[in-house]
């Protein structure tokens, strides 16, 4: 419960906050619009009395109605963890600005969020899948993810005879239907 931090945040980020600064135990939480992420992160990183220089985490969240990108930061000047929730990404086309301009390490974290949720980070030079195979067609951590329909399809599926499923429960679908590629990111 760092009250000083709360006052500093309210002072610096007044126009970006989309709700009150929420504090519980040793965490401080703010909600912002996804569009204001670069500016907010820049202020938090550079301001002399804030100095949130360590990016602890960058996560995607699917609440069922909207998607969020959640950042956790740490500063030597504050005794709390700071959580920034960029709220309100649509579930059909989630886009958010990338934090790689400030932290190069955000690149892989954003790749993971893209891979698991489909959140497209604009400005990330390398937004491709990181855990799932490159031609995987769905996003596993979404709440509407159904496992049986979304098994991975490899470009070489069905070419080797051992991979041809025989019958309705077979592995490969109709190979003549063409090669299914990963959606263009």
């Amino acid at each position, binding site marked *: 419960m760092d009250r000083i931090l709360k006052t500093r945040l309210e002072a610096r980020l007044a126009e970006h906050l989309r709700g009150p600064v929420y504090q*519980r*135990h*040793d*965490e401080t*939480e703010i909600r912002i619009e996804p569009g204001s992420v670069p500016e907010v992160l820049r202020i938090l990183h550079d301001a002399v009395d804030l100095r949130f*220089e*360590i*990016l*602890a*985490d960058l*996560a995607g*969240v*699917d609440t069922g109605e909207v998607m969020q990108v*959640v950042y*956790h930061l*740490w500063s*030597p000047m504050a*005794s709390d*963890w700071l*959580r920034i929730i960029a709220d309100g990404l649509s579930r059909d086309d989630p886009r958010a600005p990338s934090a790689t301009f*400030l*932290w*190069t*390490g*955000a*690149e*892989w*974290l954003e790749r*993971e969020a893209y891979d*698991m949720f489909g959140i497209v980070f604009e400005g990330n*030079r*390398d*937004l*491709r*899948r*990181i*855990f*799932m*195979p*490159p*031609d995987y067609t769905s996003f*596993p*951590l979404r709440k509407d*993810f159904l496992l049986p329909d979304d098994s991975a399809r490899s*470009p*070489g599926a*069905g*070419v*080797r005879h051992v991979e041809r499923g025989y019958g309705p429960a077979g592995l490969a679908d109709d*190979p*003549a239907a*063409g*090669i299914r*590629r*990963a959606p*263009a*990111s």
Partner: protein
Amino acid sequence: MPPRQNASRPTTTGTRVQAQPQPSTDDPRIMLDRQIGADLFEPIPPYPPRTEREGEFYTLGDGEMFLNVGPHHPATHGVLRLVLKLSGEQVVDVDPVLGYLHRGVEKICENSDYYHVIDQVDPLEYISSLFQEWAAVLSFEKLMDVEVPRRAEYIRVLSGELLRIASHTLYMGFLALDLGGLTPILYGFIERDEIVEMLAALTGARMLFNYFRIGGVNGDLNHEFMSRLGDWMSRAARQTEASAGLLNENEIFVRRTRGMGVLDRATALRFGVTGGNLRATGVPFDVRRAHPYSVYPELDFSIPTRTEGDSLARYLIRVDEVRESIKIIDQCLHNIPDGPVMAKLPRLLRPRPGRSWGACEGPRGMMGVYSISDGSDGPFRFRIHDPSFVNLETVPALLPGNLLADTMAIVASLDPVMGGIDK
């Protein structure tokens, strides 16, 4: 794979090998297979580059070649695939490919209840599995406003520090093994075995402990654990010095790690590196001191920090950390209070909806857990932040310019554990 028809012997330059013109067909499988076959031994993806970086990487310059340090390799720490772009023996660029060990732990935890999560989260960094559990229970205890008894906190610190020593000992052994020395790893395993047997007497398991619980630990200290611990403590300091001396003063080892893979302070902070790798660059960030949890505020220990940022510094910091951990264990043994080891909790855990973040300092860095509760008996979202993931991310920045021989040494000095990286 059907045999290549009329394929020229592939060269090691050029992005795609042009096979001789083949009889035309409109079977897409055969066309695709020919395309794959043309690049039979080149690790170039058979689809167009998806991103700017991928296109930049998979374009060969003059005199460069790809070498696939593949998932099957005697020295990658687990199933890690590094696609290296080499110019002779010098690494020009590297593209790590992950996901060979991805098990969907986060999704599984969303479908489990809070008790089961502890078991699921163990195999992440399997070498030091208590720290994942600790991060998870820290997060859950904040969600549920549970207060942990002091004796349980001391036991957590005790077992955690023992496991930290075991993990660091193994790290030293693997670093030496990747540099060619066959002996230190076996000595490391002997020391680790003593500690792991101790923890087996305490928790019942040697590797994936499943010991921490929300509100405490699963079982008090017992006689066998205390006697083994006492035996070990009487020898620990001397043993540490001996095995550290095995490598510290070895000329070949020092020459191969000094100045290698230098990570400077600004780069480390930009990558979000934590743990020993960050402290080797001069930033004294240790979650136990920066954002204390458990009973660490009462314990007296220092944070070893070095400024060189090379592999040798990363190695020496871990040696120092082992000494500090022995100090901490000593203090725990003297100060441990009596009391219960588990808080009183309802059988069905249904916390209020909310969010919490808990982080602890593991041997590789900050292990963090962000969990969202929606009032049901399991987490709605369970996000694990693994330190090895960001540590490995620095590899494309550290490797270029070094020789192939240093590749494995630098990756080993960062201490990656693929279980945690791939979740």
